[in-house]
């Protein structure tokens, strides 16, 4: 079946716009509302963390108190009351699970609705899923196979207990505690997340995947991900995100840190489908995320691919620090904003080492009354001899009430640098639509087809099994956006 046809069938199947808008009725254990040192201590205690971790968190919290929420992004939202939210929510009664059978069947039912292949499908797809439900990881599979390869893939809370030296060595070295308002907040209150360590020379035997889902109301989700690829190793990691429909806005402030040592490669893909709010702009996730990769070693490579279709507000700049000589950074992005969604997203490529290369391909699609901004920085430092960057920013507009903005910052302190920037803005042309219609392709499907064509270069970067899902999402998120 073709992409667009499948999309159509898929949309018909679900019969509503936001497929993941269900709430799982599971008793939650929460921290008291609000944010204080006590909240931080509560979370740390709940996780059974060692003192050094608590101190780290408290340091972050104190720092956060002195910081100001950034306002430079092209997004507008009501003031967030940080005292009016819960910072920790976990399904009750969750002693360590040894197998899936022990997991609350309602949770598994949720995963089923999400289409997460937790059982045999996983084996077929060759995907290991570390599912983060609100704040606690409840099921980690494929551990054994990964163990054999020496790959550590576990909830970060577990890593803090079991691999403290690794965590201490790398945590906060890419995104420092002091980095920015939301990252600092995350450092203080992160409840869980994923830890990956791929040892020297190991090619991770499968795609690693984590699904995040916000279930409890008035809860923020602050996950923390740390991925380390040791010399000569390779890992591909995918996160998918969904959240139920709610009228209130929910805050999501994640931090992702990637470290690639000599000759190592990390491929990090995101399909983000948080609840975007309704057609009138009510509700939706505020997604303030700090993602950064450090190409610490020679000839290392970090590649970000993101498909952002959800969230009321997206504030996200997955970046690469190209420290090692000859290292490579890539950023492939599709950002779709429909109705009242606002997206301000892009990347930073910081060229520190010689012969470093970066490539940025950004596809922004705006529909309804949405505002979509690409914001990117390419910076070449003095020692980055022969650094190269290629940037391509394409914007597609659907309808007359939306906006597309491109804000590239380019700095070069080395005369040998070569930096290219290309940008286009186009509309879905009436004649393209008519051509599709006249050949029997209904409107929504035609839009999906045209937009998927527009995004093709980025979709091609996704692991196969997720590319199909992403193509469908592209169609679903733009349904009804034309006339």
């Amino acid at each position, binding site marked *: 079946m*073709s992409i667009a046809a499948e999309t159509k069938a898929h949309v018909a199947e679900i019969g509503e716009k936001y497929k993941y808008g269900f709430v799982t009725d599971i008793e939650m254990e929460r921290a008291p509302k609000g944010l204080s040192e006590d909240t931080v201590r509560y979370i740390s205690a709940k996780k059974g963390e060692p003192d050094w971790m608590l101190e780290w968190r408290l340091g972050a919290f104190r720092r956060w108190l002195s910081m100001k929420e950034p306002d430079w992004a092209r997004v507008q939202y009501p003031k967030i009351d940080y005292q009016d939210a819960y910072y920790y929510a976990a399904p009750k009664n969750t002693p360590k699970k040894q197998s899936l059978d022990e997991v609350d069947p309602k949770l598994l039912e949720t995963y089923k609705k999400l289409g997460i292949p937790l059982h045999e499908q996983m084996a077929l797809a060759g995907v290991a899923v570390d599912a983060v439900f609100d704040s606690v990881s409840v099921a980690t599979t494929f551990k054994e196979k990964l163990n054999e390869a020496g790959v550590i893939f576990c909830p970060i809370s577990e890593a803090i207990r079991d691999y403290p030296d690794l965590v201490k060595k790398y945590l906060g070295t890419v995104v420092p505690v002091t980095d920015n308002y939301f990252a600092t907040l995350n450092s203080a209150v992160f409840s869980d997340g994923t830890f990956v360590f791929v040892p020297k020379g190991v090619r991770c035997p499968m795609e690693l995947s984590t699904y995040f889902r916000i279930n409890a109301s008035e809860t923020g989700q602050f996950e923390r991900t740390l991925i380390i690829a040791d010399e000569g190793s390779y890992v591909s990691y995918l996160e998918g995100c969904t959240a139920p429909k709610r009228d209130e806005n929910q805050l999501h402030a994640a931090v992702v840190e990637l470290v690639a040592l000599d000759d190592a490669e990390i491929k990090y893909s995101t399909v983000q489908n948080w609840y975007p709010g309704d057609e009138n702009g009510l509700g939706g996730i505020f997604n303030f995320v700090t993602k950064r990769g450090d190409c610490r070693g020679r000839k290392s490579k970090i590649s970000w691919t993101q498909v952002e279709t959800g969230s009321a507000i997206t504030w996200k700049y997955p970046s690469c620090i190209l420290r090692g000589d000859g290292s490579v950074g890539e950023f492939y992005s599709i950002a779709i904003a429909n109705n009242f969604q606002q997206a301000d997203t892009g990347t930073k490529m910081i060229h520190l080492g010689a012969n470093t290369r970066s490539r940025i391909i950004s596809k922004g699609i705006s529909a309804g009354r949405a505002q979509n901004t690409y914001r990117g920085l390419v910076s070449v430092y003095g020692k980055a001899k022969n650094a190269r960057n290629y940037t391509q920013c394409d914007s597609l507009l659907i309808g007359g009430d939306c906006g597309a903005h491109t804000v590239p910052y380019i700095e070069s302190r080395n005369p040998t640098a070569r930096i290219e920037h290309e940008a286009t803005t186009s509309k879905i042309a009436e004649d393209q639509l008519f051509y599709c*219609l*006249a050949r*029997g392709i209904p409107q929504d499907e035609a839009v999906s087809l045209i937009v*998927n064509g527009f995004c093709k270069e980025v979709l091609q970067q996704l692991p196969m099994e997720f590319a199909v899902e992403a193509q469908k999402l592209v169609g679903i998120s733009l349904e009804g956006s034309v006339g």
Partner: protein
Amino acid sequence: MLDIRNLHVAVDGKEILRGLTLRIEAGQVHAIMGPNGSGKSTLSYILAGRAGYEITEGSITYDGEDLAALAPEARAAKGVFLAMQYPVEIPGVTTMTFLKTALNSQRRQRGEPDLDAVGVLKLVRAKAKMLNVTEEMLKRALNVGFSGGEKKRLEILQMALFEPRLAILDETDSGLDIDALRLVAEGVNTLRGPSRAMLVITHYQRLLDYIVPDRIHVLARGRIVAEGGKELALELEARGYDHLVKDVA
């Protein structure tokens, strides 16, 4: 099969077709000839259902059904096909993907099951050869970087693939050299059949040397001003449109 009566069509409030009457039976090939601005393209668009073209008076009956009441995609599913004068480009969508999507969209509307990729490929390959549409073309983005001849051949390939009951060819000869024209015309001729009607819209008589019509209608200022057999084309070639246009002025 197609019965157009006293058709008036306006675009942006301006009347372009002004009382056009035309009837085509299954198995027949009719040609519409006329000078620039006579309403030829408007006629093709109104039949295919393009937005912005408004019927202010008259009727179009297709297979006993009110054509204007059908959405454009439904018309395609019911066998109306328009080979366009300017086929559009859709970047990033391979020609093969487009063909498959279109074919299955039509099939689905008719309640037929989808064809899988292999089934579509077989079908396309069988038809592509005759029109010299190469595998390489099928892998390229739809019409992107295609030459004029390639675009028109692809239009006729789609016609062969969808097997329409009513095919409208809008200036299919424009931009073609003589070899390309011959190839396209051959393609069209093999699709002639007792259950299919064709409406060939052209400015020049040249195309009608290759696709010989059963009947020719001359369109001027939104109305049919002359009708005749295939010999009418030769007469027009010799005398031009002026004397006919003057009569309706």
